[in-house]
């Protein structure tokens, strides 16, 4: 977008070439009173070389000839050389392209290989074929390539509306080493940018923050560019609201390691989209602002890391700690993905298998013998599990636990039910052999187990 904007200073018709990164089509007609094509070529070359020192410019009647001429110029085959710009005379495209290799004519690789196999190696040789024969042999694609080889190209640069600049560049009065002053400036910059977006009916789809660092590299000769670092963030959905944009910027800045004081900050909206204009519904309490949720999610993930914002899924496992899993919510839409009918069940033997089905959904069929997993059972006590079972000492009497020591406190056990003997996964690395006891004591109902391999007792969790 920046290159397009710069080239618009030379010509009102500028289009980035489709599928060809780094190539722009620029309208070159109507410059007779402004020095003609040589003057335009010089101006374009000067503009382009601010972006790349070996940029090339060619002027022709057709885009295909101009593109080929920039390549030929690099090879030293320029028609009319003048400061690395090539100008092909009017009506001279076919003649210019005739000796050009076929690789300079856009066509699919299969057609190119076929022509090469037939001994056709230049655009002129291909153009010399009869059009009817080409169409009969290679169809519409072949005919289109044949026209291009003759310099007949319908592509034209279009009139480009001038995009307003969506950059706010601010210099700090003195270099700072913390992000707080930068956040303050970013907020102010977003206020201005969001106002511009709203006026144009647009929303930001991506924004970039450029920090100018006051490192040793900034002590450069006058006119040289300072040391800048740019980071860009793509928004999950376009938004023009300052609060949400600021949350994304803050998340970006907070994870930015600083190796030098900051001397300036620039906030740019690098991509925009049409403003959705979505409005909340006063009578629909379930309506949510997706952009706000996205901003909250990115903030939580940035600050706390992955696997922090999750939702529960059930698993077909016996062990209490494996009977469910937390699945990370990576986008706000994830929370709605397994929507409306019952909890979610994840089937499979390990965490690696992420085959999820929705209970009660149209395509979800659970085996009959696992039907218990989608019975909603809200009237039972909730289980809380320690992340890692903690070792305990159990007092044993009459073949049942009578008391336990946990965290240096004794808890008498009034009632114990068990054992529920669970074992399995002997075919994997995490085989287990446990005797579970459900106990009742001063801390309520809790779950302990005896690891039969090590003969050690553990507290696994409690009902709360």
């Amino acid at each position, binding site marked *: 977008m920046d290159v397009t904007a710069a080239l618009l200073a030379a010509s009102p018709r500028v289009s980035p070439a489709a599928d060809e990164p780094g190539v722009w089509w620029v309208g070159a007609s109507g410059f007779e009173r402004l020095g003609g094509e040589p003057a335009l070529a010089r101006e374009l070359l000067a503009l382009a070389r601010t972006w790349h020192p070996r940029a090339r410019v060619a002027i022709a009647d057709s885009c295909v000839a101009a593109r080929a001429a920039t390549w030929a110029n690099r090879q030293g085959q320029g028609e009319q050389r003048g400061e690395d710009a090539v100008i092909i005379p009017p009506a001279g495209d076919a003649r210019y392209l005739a000796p050009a290799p076929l690789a300079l004519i856009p066509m699919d690789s299969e057609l190119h290989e076929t022509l090469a196999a037939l001994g056709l190696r230049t655009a002129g040789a291909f153009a010399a074929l009869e059009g009817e024969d080409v169409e009969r042999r290679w169809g519409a694609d072949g005919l289109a390539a044949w026209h291009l080889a003759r310099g007949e190209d319908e592509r034209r640069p279009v009139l480009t509306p001038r995009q307003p600049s969506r950059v706010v560049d601010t210099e700090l009065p003195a270099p700072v080493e913390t992000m707080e002053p930068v956040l303050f400036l970013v907020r102010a910059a977003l206020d201005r940018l969001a106002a511009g977006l709203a006026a144009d009916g647009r929303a930001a789809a991506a924004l970039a923050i450029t920090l100018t660092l006051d490192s040793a590299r900034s002590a450069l000769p006058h006119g040289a560019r300072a040391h800048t670092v740019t980071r860009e963030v793509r928004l999950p959905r376009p938004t023009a609201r300052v609060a949400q944009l600021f949350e994304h910027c803050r998340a970006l800045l907070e994870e930015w390691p600083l190796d030098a004081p900051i001397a300036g900050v620039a906030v740019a909206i690098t991509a925009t989209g049409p403003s959705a204009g979505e409005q909340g519904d006063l009578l629909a*309490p379930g309506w*949510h602002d997706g952009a706000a949720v996205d901003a909250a999610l990115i903030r939580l993930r940035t600050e706390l890391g992955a696997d922090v914002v999750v939702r529960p899924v059930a698993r077909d496992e016996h062990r209490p700690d494996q009977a469910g899993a937390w699945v990370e919510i990576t986008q706000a839409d994830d929370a709605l993905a397994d929507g409306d009918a019952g909890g979610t*069940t994840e089937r499979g033997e390990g965490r690696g298998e992420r085959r999820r089905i929705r209970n009660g959904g149209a395509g979800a069929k659970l085996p009959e013998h696992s039907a218990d997993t989608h019975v909603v059972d809200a009237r039972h006590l909730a289980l809380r599990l320690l992340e890692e079972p903690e070792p305990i000492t159990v007092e044993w009497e009459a073949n049942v636990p009578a008391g336990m020591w946990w965290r240096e406190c004794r808890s008498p056990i009034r*009632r114990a039910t068990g054992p529920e003997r669970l*074992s399995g996964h002997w075919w994997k690395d995490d085989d287990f052999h446990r005797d579970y006891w459900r106990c009742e004591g001063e801390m309520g109902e*809790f779950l302990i187990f005896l690891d039969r391999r090590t003969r050690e007792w553990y507290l696994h969790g409690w*009902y709360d």
Partner: protein
Amino acid sequence: MSMPIAVLRQQLAQVLRPPIPDTMGGLATGVESLDAILPARGLPRGRLTEVLGARGSGKTTLLRQVVDQTAGHGLWAAYVDARRTLAPGDWARACRSAHGVWMVRPRAAGAGAWCADVLLRSGAFALVILDGAPPLTRQVAVRLTRLARDADAAFVVAAEDERSATMLGGALRLRVERARRPGTRITVEKGGIHRTIEVSYAISVARCLCTHPEVPDRRGVARSRARSASTCKPPAG
């Protein structure tokens, strides 16, 4: 002329009728008798609610029901599990809908209040529960309550610590205790009629065959024995 006005009034009344009447004032707890004695017919939105209870008292079960009710009405709920002890399978089976339920499990319990801040600030959640976080300071509680009011969200702080009860100044305080029979006793200590509701719960035990290729070994027959007194003996194993 009077006829069209009457029709318009009728249509207006239909349009303005709240689609979910029981969620406009408060969020239903799922315990009807408790909702009946609460002024907002549930947990008040835009206010702070304290749920206090010792470990094993049943407060998690109550909160799970609130989340279930909230999500069941199409509203979003967030649960900050600061101690990372919730059992996912238990929640997946107990909630009718996973629609819009976020569980936030920070790696440090101290980050719980910050998580609640971010969630409330987003304005997307009708219910935000902060469970197991260190006691909130008065200033943090006031800030979070203000955010809850701005977002029209019910903000619930669940704690075991008795001391935190008097510091937060919530609009509603519920104390949860274990009942003699399996269940919980919920007492409204502040913000409503001082009454105690007793709710019975069961403990679900898996008695199922699963799709697992190996049928679990459950040869141990459940032995249950009530004990009136405990006797110390050397630990087994």
